[in-house]
């Protein structure tokens, strides 16, 4: 019974334990920080991000990107062809950081897990995870002039081109 109750030793143990826990909590990425890895260099943002948000590769599995990058001459009705060296480099960037790549983070795994193995969805907005994350957004918000379509990520997620989709950063234009 010697070391029970309030002793200096127990107080010290308690203080250290609380301190270590506080630091651990502070260091851990908040659940809100939806951060996806982005390709190094500017090629991806410059080529793909000039017409639409430079969608994080981790929003779709590699098989989706492979299909998309093999059909660039008819990219959602537009000709987005690239010179072959650029096309191959960007495809590699996408495959390396896709939702199903080996070091995918928790969100990417959830995105990947919600897509049937035989499907290669081309529209992020049609994936289960996107719908789940945006189910509270009413239709009239999407129709605002500065948003227009749910695929216009960067309209509400200002740092989408850096792979950052955290809820705290969301700014919905009027």
């Amino acid at each position, binding site marked *: 019974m010697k070391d029970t109750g309030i002793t200096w030793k127990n107080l010290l143990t308690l203080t250290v334990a609380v301190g270590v826990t506080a630091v651990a909590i502070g260091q851990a990425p908040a659940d809100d920080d939806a951060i996806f890895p982005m390709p190094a260099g500017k090629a991806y943002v410059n080529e793909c991000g000039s*017409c*639409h*948000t430079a969608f994080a590769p981790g929003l779709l599995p590699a098989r989706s990107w492979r299909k998309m990058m093999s059909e660039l001459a008819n990219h*959602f*009705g*537009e*000709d*987005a062809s690239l010179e072959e060296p650029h096309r191959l480099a960007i495809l590699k960037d996408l495959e390396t950081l896709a939702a199903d790549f080996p070091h995918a983070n928790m969100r990417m795994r959830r995105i990947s897990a919600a897509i049937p193995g035989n499907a290669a969805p081309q529209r992020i907005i049609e994936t289960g995870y996107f719908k789940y994350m945006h189910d509270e957004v009413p239709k009239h918000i999407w129709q605002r*002039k*500065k*948003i*227009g*379509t749910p*695929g*216009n990520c*960067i*309209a509400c997620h200002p740092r989408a081109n850096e792979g950052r989709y955290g809820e705290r950063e969301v700014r919905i234009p009027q």
Partner: protein
Amino acid sequence: MKRVVPLLVLLALPAYAETPQQILDSLVAQAGPASASRGEQFFRAKSSAGKTADSCAACHTDNPKAPGQHVKTHKAIDPIAPVAQKDRFTDPAKVEKWFKRNCNEVLARACTPQEKADFTAYMISVK
């Protein structure tokens, strides 16, 4: 020292490859004299061949100094006139890339050197 000062001024300028005027000059070299007013007509003209956008102005708006918006993806587009967006018409490769993409999109064909020269002259003339 008299020689060094202009060199220093050059170094202090942003590292753009060319000026809009240089880009225009090289287009004029291929096409002949450019007309800003023809360029303006071209910019606003409606095309029945457009798959998504039926004119340049569809995305870039009627005012080249104003930010535009992609008609389909709704992504914001920086103003296209150099007076409003200083990196416009400074990178020949980028200029050529977008003439290729957008002429094909709106006109379903490549633009002629004359059209490109007129368009560039118009954008430079916007003050």
